[in-house]
């Protein structure tokens, strides 16, 4: 009986490994091997066709410390992160709360409306925002017509306004996406908790901060990690909306990496790989902090 059980277990285990095998093989070939290769690439310099070991070996990493453009791209990316992520998450939570209201009619319609921006591709929405905020674009025309602006303003030609436009675009694109997670999180909160709060005399604001936010903590941690991760890798908006301009004032780290690998025949894959690793480390560190801060279990 025992032996029989053992063979069954062994058989199941073998079957389990077999099931894992294709996936493991694919992820090894497609992800792990390239990642390891990138480590070596990041220690090399020269054009892509004949790369040599860097002299000294960590030249690409020390170069970053002196590279003002990389530092600017880092400042830009963190600026987007610090301003955009909190606004977006709070907005998403409020929207989720509103749309979770049992008395609300046409809920499905409103949910679809808020989620719809996520269905547009990154490139096309960037291009739409670009034409909306162009000097002769819709926003300028409206603002001039209703008298807020006297002449057309070059939104994408000014470093500050261009950054603001990118942040607005990001909020528009990603709030609905995060809202869906919060909605799912809210479904798990028993409605009787809210009813009890109502009986105790809590108003909407108190309910939100005292009940919704604490009970949604796991969802908040997850969305925050995803948003931080996504913002650090921000690329499409920088490339398509402003092309990093004016004068590299809106360039993101990923865009700078792209410029180092494909921009204007540069093809410095060594430096680009080194930069990617720095982003990887940043994402890992930030996610770790986030998990430690967000996880209040004992």
């Amino acid at each position, binding site marked *: 009986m025992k032996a029989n059980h053992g063979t069954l277990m062994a058989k199941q285990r073998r079957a389990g490994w077999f099931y894992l095998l294709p996936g493991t093989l694919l992820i090894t070939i497609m992800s792990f091997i390239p990642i390891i290769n990138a480590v070596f690439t990041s220690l090399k310099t020269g054009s892509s066709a004949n790369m040599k070991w860097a002299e000294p070996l960590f030249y690409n990493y020390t170069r970053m410390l002196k590279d003002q453009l990389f530092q600017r791209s880092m400042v830009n990316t963190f600026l987007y992160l610090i301003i955009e992520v909190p606004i977006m998450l709070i907005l998403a939570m409020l929207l989720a709360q509103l749309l979770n209201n049992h008395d609300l009619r046409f809920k499905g319609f409103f949910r679809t409306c808020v989620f719809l921006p996520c269905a547009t591709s990154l490139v096309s929405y960037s291009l739409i925002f670009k034409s909306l905020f162009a000097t*002769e674009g819709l926003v300028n025309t409206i603002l001039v017509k209703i008298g807020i602006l006297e002449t057309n303003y070059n939104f994408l030609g000014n470093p500050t306004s261009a950054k603001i436009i990118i942040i607005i675009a990001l909020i528009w694109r990603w709030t609905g996406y995060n809202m869906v997670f919060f909605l799912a999180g809210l479904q798990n909160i028993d409605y009787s908790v809210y009813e009890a709060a109502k009986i105790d005399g809590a108003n909407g604001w108190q309910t939100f901060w005292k009940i919704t936010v604490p009970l949604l903590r796991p969802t908040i941690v997850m969305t925050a990690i995803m948003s931080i991760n996504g913002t650090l890798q921000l690329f499409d908006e920088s490339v398509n909306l402003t*092309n990093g301009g004016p*004068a590299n004032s809106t360039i993101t780290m990923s865009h700078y990496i792209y410029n180092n690998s494909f921009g204007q025949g540069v093809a410095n894959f060594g430096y680009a790989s080194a930069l990617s690793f720095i982003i990887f480390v940043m994402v890992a560190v930030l996610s770790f902090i986030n998990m430690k801060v967000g996880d209040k279990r004992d």
Partner: protein
Amino acid sequence: MKKITRRSFLAGLAAVSAAGVLAACGSSSSSTAASTAGSTAGSTAAEGGHKLTAYAWDASFNIPALNAAAADYKENVDPDFELEIIEQSQSSDVENAITLAASAGDYSTLPDIVLFQDHYIQKYVSDYPDAFVPVEGADIDWTGISEEKLSYSTIDGVHYGVPVDNGTVIFAYRTDLLEQAGYTIDDMTGISWADFIKVGQDVYNATGKYLLCMDGDGNDLIYMMLQAEDASQFKDGEPFITGNEPLRQVCEVIVEMVQKNVCYLANDWSGYINQVILGDMVAGVMNGNWIIPTICQVPENSGKWEITSLPTLAGGEGYASNGGSSLYITANCDNVDLAKEFLAYTFGGSTVTYDNALRDGGVITTVLACGESDVYNEGVEYFNNTPIYAQIVEMGGNVPIIEQSDYHYRARTYMAAAIINTINGANLDDELANAEQQIRFEMGL
């Protein structure tokens, strides 16, 4: 029974994944097999290969030129000849395809011949020495081609490219708008930039149009204005930004022009084309003559434009060249002899090719003899019936040869940023020092 199904299922799964891997290998090996088969077929029967493939990107400009050349070769040399043009959406697509193929060490994705902008070839040859086949031995009279044009595609005395279009810079003015401000095209010829700014202010006050415009993101003004001074941003292979007096003055002039509404800097290339030129915001356009087809897209301004040379810092006519392209034979070309013959016969100096290229695409030759044909001496209605093409070929002969660099476009990027930052209030000298440092970084200096 049950056991068998599971085992067969697992076996099936393993087979599927193995097949997937095999299929991936199989496709690459079959393609190499196909290409080797192609090359042997090409070499065993030299007269058997009649087909070439090419990358080009502009359906209203260089693609008609390639079509004209193909038709010329087909009619006069080889009736079976066929040129398959693989259209790319923009010039950077061609450049990315080359970078990608060369980085992977697999040129099989490239066509037989590629067209790309002249400033890239130096960097490609130094980075990827195997990527291009020199056109040495082709039947071309190199002395009959503009020397300045060849200075890009000739590396250590070896010719790598056959010129297609001419990048000679023109300064096109709206004569009707100049007249409203009290000037003529002759006043603008040989003018100094300082006087140009005065005229520009008068024109803006009288008509509300800018006398000059450029894409602020890919700012070519600096390079063009500097070449007209016979100066370069590079010296002995190193960036020459700080301590370069003409360069500093050119930058000052550009900043002043923007601040005084003489020059409009668009946010990007499409803004430059669609908003500024097609949107009729300007009284003057200065760029490589390939900008002419764009200018001509505003039909109501026909007859109001004329062209002349560039202003200079001290006054006197300036000449420059910007953004021409050439055809290059790739390492993947199976039939190098045919490619060389085709290029030599057509773009090497065929009047038929160049006449049709001009008629269909507005492509202007750098082959001096081809610029003397009747088509070139016809007046162009859009430009007040002046023979602008002959004028451009003549101006092309005066363009000074300046030091070129692999890092031309990188320098352009950083200089464009320096100009924008200075306009927004930064100190020009700090910005120039910064730009120089970034370029040195990229060059590994």
